[in-house]
């Protein structure tokens, strides 16, 4: 079965790397995967979409994802500028980086919350003044994508080296444990 995920992030938050880490995790488990960056030039600070396809069979299509099964939103602010209903299929989920578990979810979409920025700040994962939320987000997304946390941790260790790999892997592990369904619909 083909699962299509869209990652909405601000350029510089590591949405593309998150897609790659999750694709690597899936491939190590024998699946097929495709990680597609936002097509275009560098866009630090502006909204970017990255795509992730996972499947049991080889993936042939190469176009962008118009409607996703899973939407990962790397910053709460993004909800103010996009209509998530337009980006999601029927049987759908959002994973949202927010410190506010009481977020008023008016979208009618099943929404999982994770304080990825808080996890990153606690681990001192900061670059150019921004908390590095992408690895925590991969941990939070792993459950919805049926990926083991071990495979995600291994993919992170293939992507980074040394101390950086350890800290990022830790962020993913914490997020995997702490991701929660938002109760307020």
């Amino acid at each position, binding site marked *: 079965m083909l699962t299509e995920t869209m990652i909405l992030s601000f350029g510089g938050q590591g949405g593309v790397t998150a897609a790659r880490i999750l694709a690597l995790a899936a491939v190590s488990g024998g699946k097929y995967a*495709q990680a597609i960056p936002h*097509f275009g030039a560098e866009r630090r600070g502006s909204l970017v979409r990255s795509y992730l396809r996972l499947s049991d069979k080889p993936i042939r299509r190469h176009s962008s994802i118009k409607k996703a099964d899973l939407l990962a939103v790397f910053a709460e602010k993004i909800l103010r500028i996009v209509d998530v209903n337009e980006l999601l299929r029927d049987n759908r989920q959002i994973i949202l980086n927010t410190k506010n578990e009481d977020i008023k979810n008016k979208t009618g979409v099943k929404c999982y919350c994770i304080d990825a920025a808080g996890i990153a700040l606690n681990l001192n994962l900061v670059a150019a003044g921004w908390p590095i939320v992408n690895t925590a987000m991969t941990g939070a997304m792993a459950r919805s994508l049926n990926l083991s946390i071990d495979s995600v941790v291994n993919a992170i260790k293939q992507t980074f080296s040394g101390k950086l790999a350890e800290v990022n892997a830790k962020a993913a592990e914490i997020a995997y444990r702490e991701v929660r369904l938002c109760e307020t619909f």
Partner: protein
Amino acid sequence: MRTLLTGNYAVAEAVKLSRARVIAAYPITPQTTIVEKLAEMVEKKEIDAEFIRVESEHSALAAVYGSAVAGLRSFTATSSHGLLYMYEMVWWVANARVPLVMAVVTRTIGPPWNIHTDHTDLLTMRDSGWIISMAENVQEAFDLTVQGFRISEEAGLPFTVGMDAFQLSHTAEVVDLPSQQDVDAWLPERRQPYRIEPEDPVTVGCIGPNEYTAKLRCNMAREMEKAKELVNRVDEEFGKSFGRRYGGLVEEYRLEDADYAVVMTGAWSGDAKDAIDMLRKEKLRVGMLRLRYFRPFPQKELRKLLEEKEVLVVDRDFSMGHMGILGIEVSSAIGDITNVIAGIGGVDVGVDDFKMMFRKFADKKLRKIEWWPEEMFL
């Protein structure tokens, strides 16, 4: 080894495993990360090659022209405006009958400035005397690069690997990466019609009698004709060693019993195959003939495989004052076709588009030349 690679990194790995000795390139999006990766490999001494930094694409191709006639396996890569800037050298290399491989990551020609895929840039090489191939996925881009060295060196003609900007160049997919040992066993030592050596000087490309040019072009045409069999043979032999065969000049997909045949090339062929599977479930007998090579052109295969089928050619390019370039080419082989022009300037065309497009074609609701999607061009 089963791994995850972008199209650009896969091509860089193929160049490394093919033991290229000289790489020269000038960066241009979306090709840049191919040569960036190769530069890194040279720096880390993972590949025994010289990387020549140049001030333009014209010089990039001129540099590998020189290294290739001197007898070294050589590689360069470019896109769009870079290809146009080196266009003069494209012809020098072709007429010098020099084997080398170039990757062209297809990118729209501006203005307006645009870095996304269409196929116009690659197809400007049409008449020059290069063998021109086009990949559907990252694995095929890898495979064509390795095969390109062998085909180019056997035919005495330069070889280009085309692949779509971003859809392949920057998309990470599963790739089966062979070992160095396996590639060494498959890819013979470099051979070429002649080489320039200090002890045995020859002149290349100087002025000569007109008959000299005429004979040269005729010989190239004959060699290009022979390359058809070579491409098919190399595809088979590659399949024996690595387990992947694509069909040679063309790939057939659910074509045999099809009433409707779609002819296209590049990364979006995968989307079209998914659409074909869906339409087959709705009892529409549609199939695909995918052009893997544009030069040499597979007239014989087209005539045989498309006989008695309704043919739709989908172009990601257009020849002003006429029709899509593949449309022109396919009509020259089989006559009447319908031609859709889509995805120009990188406009995203996916599975749903193809499903609707092929259905409309079967229902005879497409014009002879149809710009897709219709509502964009009202």
